[in-house]
C-alpha cells in the first residue's frame, strides 16, 4: 500500500496547483525546445546532412559558404591528400522562388551537389530537376510542379521530396551542379563560376584515418588555400547559431529551475500542512527516510502526470501555430523534457527533507 499514491488518487485537487504549474512549464519547455530545434535544423540541415566528416572552404572565406570559392586545381590537390577517400563539390544560391498559384515567393536555397547528402538521392541526371525539402509544402510547393527561381525566373521542376535539408531557414532544393551553375549565372551573372569551381568541398576520410589529421593534410596539400574543418565546426560557424542556441538554452535551463522551485515550494507547504500526520506516522514507527520517500514519490508522479498533460497541450498548440514558424516537436526533445522535469521535481522535493527529518514524533502526543 503506497500512502503517497492513495493520497494523489483520493485528493487530486490538493495537487492541482502544482500540476497546473508544471503542465504550463512543460508546454513552455516543449515549445521552446521545439523552436530551438526547428531553428537549428532549419539553419543547419543542409550542412549536417553532408556525407563527409570534413568540409573544405576557401581559406579567406572565414567558413562562409557564400564567400567561398574552390577552383578545379585545388579540388585535385585535395583529392590527392593522404587519408582522403572521396571529395565532392557543393554550391548554393539563396533565391526567391515563384510558386505557381501562390501570391508570395518562397525563400529557397538551391544546392548543386556531387556526393549525395544523407536522405537525398544521387543528383538528378538532368539539369533543371530538383528534389525539394518537405518544409516547402507549407508554401504551396507540390511534386511535379515547376518553380521559377530568381529574377530571371529560371525554371526547375520538383522530382521528389527530401527532409531536414534546409539552409539558413530557406527551403532546400537539391539539383546537379549544372543546375546550380546555371541558376547562379542567371541570378547573379557577376558571380558566374568557371567549370570545376565549387564553393565548398565535402570530404570523406579513409577508414581508420583521423579526420583532424586529414583536414590538416588537405590544407597543406592545397598550400594553405583551403581551410578544412570538421562538419560540426562548420555548422557551429554559421552566423547566429551559437547565440541562438545559448539564448534558447538559457531560457530552457531557467524554466527547469522554475519547475524545481515550484515543486520545492509546493512540497514545503504541503509538508508544513502535514506536520501532524507525519508526527503520527513517526510515532507509530515510520522512519524519516520512509516519509521522505513518500514526498519524492508524489513529486515524481506529479512530474510524469504533468508532462503527459503538457505534451498533449503542446501538440495542440503546435497544430495551430502557422507553418512558417519553425517549430519542430521531436521525441528526443520530449524525452529530454520528461527526464529533466522528473530530475528537477526530485531535486525540488529534496528541499522538504530537512523539515521531514525535523518533525518530532513526540508532537503527536503532546
Amino acid at each position, binding site marked *: 500500500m503506497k*500512502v503517497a499514491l*492513495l493520497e494523489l488518487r483520493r485528493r487530486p485537487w490538493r495537487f492541482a496547483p502544482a500540476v497546473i504549474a508544471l503542465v504550463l512549464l512543460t508546454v513552455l519547455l516543449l515549445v521552446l525546445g521545439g523552436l530551438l530545434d526547428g531553428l537549428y535544423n532549419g539553419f543547419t540541415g543542409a550542412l549536417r546532412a553532408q556525407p563527409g566528416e570534413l568540409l573544405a572552404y576557401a581559406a579567406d572565406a572565414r567558413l562562409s559558404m557564400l564567400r567561398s570559392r574552390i577552383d578545379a586545381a585545388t579540388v585535385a590537390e585535395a583529392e590527392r591528400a593522404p587519408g582522403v577517400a572521396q571529395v565532392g563539390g557543393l554550391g548554393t544560391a539563396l533565391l526567391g522562388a515563384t510558386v505557381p498559384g501562390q501570391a508570395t515567393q518562397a525563400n529557397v536555397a538551391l544546392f548543386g551537389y556531387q556526393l549525395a547528402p544523407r536522405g537525398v538521392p544521387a543528383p538528378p541526371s538532368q539539369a533543371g530537376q530538383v528534389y525539394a525539402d518537405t518544409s516547402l509544402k507549407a508554401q504551396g510547393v507540390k511534386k511535379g510542379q515547376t518553380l521559377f527561381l530568381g529574377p530571371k525566373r529560371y525554371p526547375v521542376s520538383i522530382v521528389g521530396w527530401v527532409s531536414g535539408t534546409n539552409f539558413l531557414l530557406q527551403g532546400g532544393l537539391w539539383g546537379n551542379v549544372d543546375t546550380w551553375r546555371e541558376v547562379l549565372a542567371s541570378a547573379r551573372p557577376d558571380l558566374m563560376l568557371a567549370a570545376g569551381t565549387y564553393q565548398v568541398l565535402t570530404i570523406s576520410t579513409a577508414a581508420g584515418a583521423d579526420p583532424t589529421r586529414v583536414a590538416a593534410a588537405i590544407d597543406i596539400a592545397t598550400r594553405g588555400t583551403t581551410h578544412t574543418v570538421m562538419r560540426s565546426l562548420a555548422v557551429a560557424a554559421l552566423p547566429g547559431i551559437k547565440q541562438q542556441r545559448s539564448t534558447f538554452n538559457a531560457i530552457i535551463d531557467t524554466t527547469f529551475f522554475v519547475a524545481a522551485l515550484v515543486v520545492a515550494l509546493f512540497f514545503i507547504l504541503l509538508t508544513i500542512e502535514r506536520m501532524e500526520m507525519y508526527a503520527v506516522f513517526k*510515532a507509530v*514507527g515510520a*522512519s524519516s527516510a520512509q516519509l521522505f520517500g513518500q514526498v519524492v514519490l508524489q513529486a515524481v508522479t506529479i512530474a510524469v502526470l504533468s508532462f503527459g498533460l503538457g505534451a498533449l497541450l503542446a501538440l495542440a498548440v503546435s497544430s495551430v501555430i502557422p507553418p512558417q514558424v519553425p517549430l519542430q516537436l521531436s521525441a528526443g526533445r520530449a524525452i529530454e523534457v520528461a527526464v529533466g522535469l522528473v530530475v528537477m521535481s526530485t531535486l525540488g522535493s529534496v528541499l522538504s527533507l530537512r523539515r521531514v527529518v525535523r518533525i518530532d514524533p*513526540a508532537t503527536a*502526543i503532546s
Partner: protein
Amino acid sequence: MGHHRAAALKLENVRKAYRSGDDEIVAVDRATLEIGNAEIVALVGPSGSGKTTLLSISGGLLSPSDGRVLVAGDDISGYDPKQLTKFRRENVGFVFQSVNLVPFLTARENLLVVADFSRRDKKKSAARADQLLDELGLEQRKANLPAQLSGGERQRVAVGRAFMNEPDLVLIDEPTSALDTRLGEQVMELIVTEVRARNTAAVIVTHDQRMTHHADRTLYITDGVLSDAPRT
C-alpha cells in the same frame, strides 16, 4: 520480544528536565513505577503535571534526562532515534488524544499503514487488520473514510491501529477528553475490553478522575512527581 516474564513497563528514577535560559524546568521528577503484563494503569494529573511527558518517555517518543526505562525487559533509555523508531514500530501501540486518523485512508488502510511502515507480510497484515476491525464491530465500516465514521467508530479504528503491531504496551492519551460522559464511558469500556482481551499492558492518561475505575490501578502525577494517591 520474548520477555514475557519481565514487567511490561518499568521506570527507575526517571527524570526529564528542559533548559529555559538559565533555568531548568523539571517535567518528570524521579519517577519510579512498574506495570505488570495485562495490567491497566490510569495516570491522572492536571494540565502541565508531566503526564504526557511520562507517557512519551514510556513509549520511546522522548528520551529521559536521567533514569532507566525498560519495556518488556528491554532498556530503551540509551536508544538513539533510529532504535527508538524501530522500538515504537514493534513494541508500542498508541491511541492519540485527537484520534489522528489519516483522513484520506479508509478504516482498514489506517490499520494497514502501520504494517506498511514495518514492511510486514502483506497477507498476514491484511488478515490481522480485518480481524481487529471485525472484533471492534467495524466489519461493515472497513471501506469508510474517517469523515464517514462517527466519533465512536473513529475511536475504535484508532484502538485497532494501536493493536496492529501486536504491542507489549499500549499507551492511551486522554481518550475521553473530547467526549461527553456517556460516550467517554463507552470508549473507556471499549478500550479496556480490547486491552484485556489481548492480555496487554496499558497506560491511560486522563485528567478525568471519573474514568479511573476502569483501570486496575491509578497513579497520580503533580508537578512531575508520581504518587499512588492524589497530592493535597
